[in-house]
């Protein structure tokens, strides 16, 4: 585009197709775990190289080694023909290796411009050149085609927009090798498109991109090559044109794709919950029913009001108008406690912020909702506490050495099993799952879906929120589409196609660029 852009990204010295970074017998051992086993892999200059694999396959470890966050156990890393130690993050950055993480690691209280130049501020005689930096940052952002202001505080932007800033930040640092770790997990489609444009553009400028994602369609949309990791081993690398979904999934999990979306149809029973013209913060005038034995899917973009709707049902927020009926009778749900007593259970959106006590044992997390039941007036029955925890760990096949291991030491998928599992012993009738499979690998997804069926067959009802259309499409008996806080359409199982649903969810968005603030 403009000449500034070229100045900002110093042209890499290598022509496309040559090896920029080579891993030779790379190994990483943690106490008790062999996280990476003899990885041999060469990344070419100016390619988009996707890395896929289940949780625990070694993707995060690989990123940590490449960005110098952790030292490798053995093996060599060859950067532009010379061995590199990669002992510190600083060294990696000096070589031109950067990473954009799934969760934004920037300073939320500083402005966008301050974040972009964090660590290399423009100052004259020790005085920050704030206005100049804002101008410069705005130029970069405009140039990248993001419709975002540089002078606002980062925390005021949506998570998706923050992610774009994080990506923009990485591009201004002479990056030759940029790693994206699940960048689209929290992005709207529009934001994801902007990010993809940026990624393609960087590739055009000679930057090597490592793209890590659970979403196959993104891999096929973006990548030139794809490598599959399983249990710390590199299973194989394919040119994207010569492979397909089915092959990659098979390489990842040794299982076919049809087995993932496990769906059984049950005859719906009595109505459990009814919302009548319910309004609250972030949504208005929503009516729906949930019956025993059915999955009600809520589809829409992030920020469409789905999470706000269910958290209001659950008593976390106050409704401003409308009624909630439970088993035919109007109820007041003034707190989570009321909701739980009625028989609702909520597995929230963010494991880290809402779902888990990370620095406490797995067993305590699993038992948290049922401590009342497993204790008399005074004391907890420790036999029951142990038995309940062990039962859930065995039933859900949670991979943990013991129930006393800290929740933080488990992989993402196993953590998600805890978030869901803690409600199973509680005996709820209505389960609300908010994005239950974000950042979860295919194998665990399949297990979670089978769990849904088990719940339904026991007479429970499920509300399933997902921003991932195939998930709600394949699983929901009734599919409601949300857009900007309103319920805009309702479909039965497979009565509409993907395109129609997507259009309904997006409609206004496409006419109005830059919305979603």
């Amino acid at each position, binding site marked *: 585009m403009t000449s500034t852009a070229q100045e900002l990204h110093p042209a890499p010295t290598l022509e496309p197709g040559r090896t920029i970074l080579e891993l030779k017998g790379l190994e990483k051992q*943690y*106490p*008790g*775990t062999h*996280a990476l086993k003899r990885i041999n892999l060469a990344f070419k200059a100016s390619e988009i190289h996707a890395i896929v694999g289940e*949780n*625990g*396959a*070694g*993707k*995060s*470890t690989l990123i940590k080694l490449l960005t110098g966050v952790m030292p490798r156990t053995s093996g060599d890393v060859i950067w532009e023909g010379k061995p590199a130690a990669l002992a510190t993050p600083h060294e990696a950055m000096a070589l031109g290796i950067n990473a954009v993480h*799934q*969760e934004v690691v920037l300073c939320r209280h500083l402005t966008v411009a301050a974040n972009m130049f964090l660590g290399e501020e423009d100052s004259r005689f020790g005085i920050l050149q704030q206005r100049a930096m804002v101008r410069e940052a705005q130029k970069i952002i405009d140039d990248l085609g993001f419709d975002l202001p540089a002078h606002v505080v980062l925390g005021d932007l949506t998570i998706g927009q923050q992610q774009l800033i994080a990506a923009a930040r990485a591009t201004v640092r002479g990056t030759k090798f940029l790693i994206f*770790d*699940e960048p689209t*997990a929290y992005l709207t489609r529009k934001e994801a498109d902007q990010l993809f444009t940026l990624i393609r553009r960087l590739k055009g400028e000679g930057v090597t991109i490592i793209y*890590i994602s659970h979403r196959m369609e993104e891999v096929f949309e973006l990548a030139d090559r794809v490598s599959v990791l399983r249990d710390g081993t590199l299973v194989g690398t394919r040119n994207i044109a010569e492979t397909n979904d089915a092959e990659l999934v098979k390489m990842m999990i040794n299982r076919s794709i049809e087995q993932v979306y496990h769906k059984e149809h049950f005859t719906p029973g009595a109505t459990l919950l009814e919302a009548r013209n319910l309004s609250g913060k972030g949504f208005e005038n929503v009516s729906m029913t949930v019956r025993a034995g059915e999955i009600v899917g809520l589809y829409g973009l992030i920020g469409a009001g789905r999470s706000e709707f269910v958290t209001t049902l*659950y008593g*976390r927020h106050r409704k401003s108008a409308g009624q909630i009926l439970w088993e035919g009778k109007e109820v007041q749900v003034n707190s*989570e*406690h009321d909701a*739980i007593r009625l028989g609702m259970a*909520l597995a*929230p959106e963010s494991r*880290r*912020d*809402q*779902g888990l*006590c*990370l*620095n*406490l*044992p797995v067993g*305590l997390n699993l*038992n*948290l*909702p049922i*401590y*009342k039941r497993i*204790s008399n007036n*005074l*004391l*907890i029955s*420790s036999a029951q506490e142990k038995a309940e925890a062990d039962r859930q760990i065995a039933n859900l096949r949670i991979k*943990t*050495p*013991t129930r*006393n*291991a*800290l929740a933080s*030491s*488990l*992989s*993402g998928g*196993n953590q998600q099993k805890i978030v869901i599992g*803690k409600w199973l012993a509680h005996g709820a009738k209505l389960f609300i799952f908010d994005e239950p499979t*974000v*950042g979860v*690998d295919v194998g665990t997804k399949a297990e979670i879906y089978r769990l849904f069926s088990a719940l339904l067959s026991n007479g429970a009802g499920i509300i399933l929120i997902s921003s991932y259309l195939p998930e709600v499409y394949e699983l929901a008996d009734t599919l409601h589409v949300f857009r900007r806080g309103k319920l805009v359409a309702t479909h039965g199982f497979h009565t509409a196609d993907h395109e129609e649903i997507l259009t309904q969810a997006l409609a206004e968005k496409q006419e109005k660029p830059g919305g979603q603030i």
Partner: protein
Amino acid sequence: MSTEAIAAAKPKRNYNALFGLTLLALLVLLWVILSVATPSFASANNISNLLRQGSMIAILAVGQTFVIITGGIDLSVGAVVGFATVIVAMLINAGVPIFLAILITLLVGVAIGLFHGFGIVKMGLPPFIITLATLTSLRGIGLLMTNGNSISINNDAFQLFSRSSFLGVPNLFWMVILVGIPAYVFLHHSRWGRYLFSVGSNAEASRLSGVNVQRTIYMAYTLSGLCAAFVGVLLASRIGIGNPTQAEGWELQAIASSVIGGTSLFGAVGSVHGPLLGAFILATINNGANLLNVNAFWQRIITGVLIIVIVYFDGLRRRGK
């Protein structure tokens, strides 16, 4: 949301017990060294004295630990102790039966704790701020009530209690056991104890799991206030006066004991035996330093160094080295 486990999941079984044993070993080691180094340390008189010195901070530290486990802090406990000495002294001098005077004083402690809970839960104030505010105002209220004078307690029976022993052990130390055992059961074997940990670890996750977070916060500060008022009664009994400026800086000693005992100021990590051992380690160091004629100024420095060393090594082990 990392896509895989960062490190191997290691069983943390019995970690608490192990750390407790280490502290106990440290305490015993100090005692052995001091017994050898000074002729007077191992005397019955000195040991009784040591137990009396450590007991009051130990009880404060237990209440403090409940608060710290929820991720908060209670800076007011020293002031509550001083204030409680005034209340109990005034009541006894006014002819209120001892039993009733103590009960009312304890209720005052509960009320102060409830006020802290109110400030944190309803007014949204940080624990540091609300308890700092009561720290200074309680001292002020106490000075107003006494006109800045000490109140001598005219009741020998009341004062006799803290000077006497039962089965050869000072009554004050029995009070530690009286508080410690229910506190242990409460923290480790009741669901409210579990809720203290879960709120300290992640309040939002606890709330969504049906834990009454507000009530848990109220409970932690109320128990801390109660422990502090109880210590106030014991102190009044020991020194025979009510004085609002007593127990200056005890809040910091209580926090130090708690931290030495393995409590994490970030919340969700702590025990009952830890702060008790921590308090007696501090008391032993002070006592030993006195016997060895170490300058009192040095004692403060030693305490500071000890906090750094113990917390540093504890942190190393928690990170799994």
